[in-house]
């Protein structure tokens, strides 16, 4: 399985929704504390042992914490930057013409960006200034700002079936479900006793979402009966940094954690842990499952490595 070495510490990796063999990696220097950042757009090598061809690389003044591929343009990327800006890049243009846009409205680090998979024209940014902002690619300013959380918002995710619904996870230990047509949040789920670092919607059940928290657990919630979780998945040794539902199987999800592992879970099964990979030697911070290729996983971490492998294979195998 190919391995890519990034010069900076990895923060996020995303598969392109247009090309099966394309990924983008967000990295930040000095663990993201203080330093530059870089975005890599890579293609999967023709054979597992070959190196990754790099299609593009973009340097930023501050670390890049997350990125999202556009669902409407095959080469457009949105980057969440630690200086509070959201930047648009076009990987088909040379680095000198990039970024296309730099949207500076957040007052603190932007932790997460998510592109709307149904409307395909808008995206969200979640930042440590307790707000989430809604943007469209053609507008220079945000369309809306959602300010209700009492602490940093760590993640925002669009509902895969309802174009106007999204959820946000925050350090104030709550998950909020929003509807862009409503002025405020429509639902507040006190999902964990500790900070919630990530969340994702089930692609096949639009009322189910999973949250990952500092308390080392992943909880699966049904918004129709949100008082108690549908499932509590324990097994990680430290805080769970990211959780992603599989685009191909309804109850399967991947998670990465500060215990340096990437785990696969199936919350409908008695023993939910269906896979565990401990290929990273530092915090595993980014994980993604390909929408176009079933079973293809990618992960990155602070050990400055990016792995791409098929579920069931050894990511470190040559």
């Amino acid at each position, binding site marked *: 399985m190919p391995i890519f070495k990034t010069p900076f510490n990895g923060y996020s990796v995303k598969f392109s929704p247009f090309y099966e063999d394309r990924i983008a990696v967000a990295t930040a220097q000095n663990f993201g504390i203080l330093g530059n950042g870089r975005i890599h757009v890579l293609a999967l090598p023709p054979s597992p042992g070959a190196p990754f061809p790099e299609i593009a690389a973009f340097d930023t003044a501050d670390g890049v914490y997350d990125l999202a591929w556009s669902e409407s343009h095959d080469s457009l990327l949105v980057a969440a930057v630690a200086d509070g800006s959201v930047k648009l890049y076009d990987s088909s243009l040379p680095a000198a013409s990039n970024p296309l846009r730099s949207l500076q409205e957040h007052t603190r680090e932007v932790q997460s960006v998510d592109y709307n998979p149904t409307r395909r024209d808008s995206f969200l940014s979640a930042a440590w200034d307790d707000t989430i902002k809604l943007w469209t690619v053609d507008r220079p300013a945000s369309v809306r700002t959602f300010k209700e959380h009492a602490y940093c918002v760590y993640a925002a995710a669009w509902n895969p079936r309802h174009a106007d619904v999204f959820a946000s996870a925050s350090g104030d230990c709550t998950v909020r479900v929003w*509807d862009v047509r409503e002025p405020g949040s429509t*639902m507040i789920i006190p999902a964990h006793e500790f900070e919630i670092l990530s969340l994702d919607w089930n692609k096949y059940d639009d009322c189910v979402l999973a949250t990952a928290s*500092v308390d080392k657990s992943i909880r699966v919630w049904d918004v129709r009966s949100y008082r108690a979780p549908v*499932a509590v998945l324990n097994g990680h040794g430290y805080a769970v940094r990211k959780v992603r539902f599989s685009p191909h199987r309804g109850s399967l999800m991947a998670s990465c954690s500060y215990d340096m592992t990437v785990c696969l879970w199936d919350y409908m099964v008695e023993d939910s842990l269906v896979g565990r990979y401990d290929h990273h030697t530092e915090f595993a911070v980014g994980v993604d499952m390909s*929408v176009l*290729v079933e079973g293809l996983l990618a992960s990155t971490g602070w050990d400055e490595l990016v792995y791409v492998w098929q579920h069931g294979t050894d990511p470190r195998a040559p």
Partner: protein
Amino acid sequence: MAAGTDDKPQESGTESAKPTNEAPQNAAADDVKSSSTPSVFVNSEPIREEQVQNAVKFLSHPKVQGSPVIYRRSFLERKGLTKEEIDEAFRRVPDPAPSAQPANVSPDPQLKSSANIQPQSSAQALQPAATATAPAGVISSVVTMTQPRFRWIHAAYAVGFLAVSGAGTAVLLKNAVIPRFKSWIRKVISDEESDVLKKTNAGPSLEEETAAAAKAAAAAAADVAKASQEMLNSKVEERRYFGELVKLLDVQLQEMKSMSTSIRKLEGHANTSGALSQFNHEDHGGLLTTSKPYANGRAEVDSRPVRSSSPPTSSEPSAAPHPKSYMEIMAMVQRGERPPNVKDINDAPPNPHQQIPNPRLAPRAKPWEADQTQNNPSNVFQYQSSAEAWNYNAQDNGIIDQSNGDPSAPWWQRKNVRITEIDRDEDLKTGAFGSRTSDQTVQRAWVPPQPPPIAMPEAAEAIRRPKLAAQKEQSSEETASRSSDGIDELQKVMKFSESGGAENTSEMSSGMNSSGSGMNSSEIQVEQE
């Protein structure tokens, strides 16, 4: 924050207070999908009076009223209150002047002793110090939303005020007492001298003078005594507050020590060394463990739907050990240094008005969107064939050598490795979950069930009639009483058909057009009643 508290969510909250889990909402009728509608993403529970009363008690607490509104709201949200309940509680609390300052002088029994001190500047300096320490002392023990920064800053302020007040009193008294003392001594001495001189002059006047001198001396001594007494009092007070503060800090210290010992134990297993980090959420989560007075208030988890994968480990988060170089960089940054490898990069857009290029490829359907109707076992093969198509079409992929000889299976698309085959074959207790064989990958979208044939025509008739009455009320917000009035006869019908299962009636109504949605909701209401 202010944007969130609006009337609109209030309305939508009460509208969907009729539990309408599946009935499409009349207001958002533009959502054509027959399956779950936006109303699913709204709190559909009615306001729980008990929770509201608890919240009112919490909000009426004087300590709480000194805290910012957003922390009060956040606390209530974490206790599981809905937005409507929180708004209701805020409405009920007789809200005095909302002050955002954390340390207001409040008539607190703890502070009455400080109020007794005479209004010297030292006492005034004490009062803000006392109020700073008292909230600091109380916050950790009483339910509040705790931010560690909150507490530490208050502790720092308290220490600062104490020091300043101590220094101030020392200086003042030094300036006041000592000159007085000196002048008193001088007076005595001069009196003695004058006495010596005037001794021969007049007896009674001498006595008078000595008496006066003695009185003055006594008065001065009394003054000095009083002043020193006051100083002592204030010092005692200060010491007491300081002692409390130190106790709190000790508690904090102990907890941090216990955390670090547990981490050291863990580090014994790990290779990395490194002390407790200060970074972001690991620590924030860690510090939250020290202040969980409200943990027991967490909603009980219904054991039935919850499935744990393995015996739950301790849910207390311990901070993960950070790499050594991470600690170095943190230390450097905290000292204010810039790490040497950071470059100045200009990442501004070179042309902010550059046109966004037109998309070259059409967006591809998502795997979950493709199966609106039926499971499609050929999905997998579709991807493979489409992959081939992309391999030929995509110009930008020229980098990839397509001539790997096997266009149907690039190395990352190996389909022989199925997720179901991994190690867990024996665990596939899939009887309940049906098709694990080939493609159960997609759950079907919810298709509304066909309405059953009408078994009881009278029931159908009765249902249809109150529908007209209910329809009028749908434009305005329906309340429980009003809708139930309109369907009294329906209640009788419901009892008949209850044997057929509540589903039947709901199905029958769902089979009707969307205006029956109000009917559906009121039916369910009736059932609940």
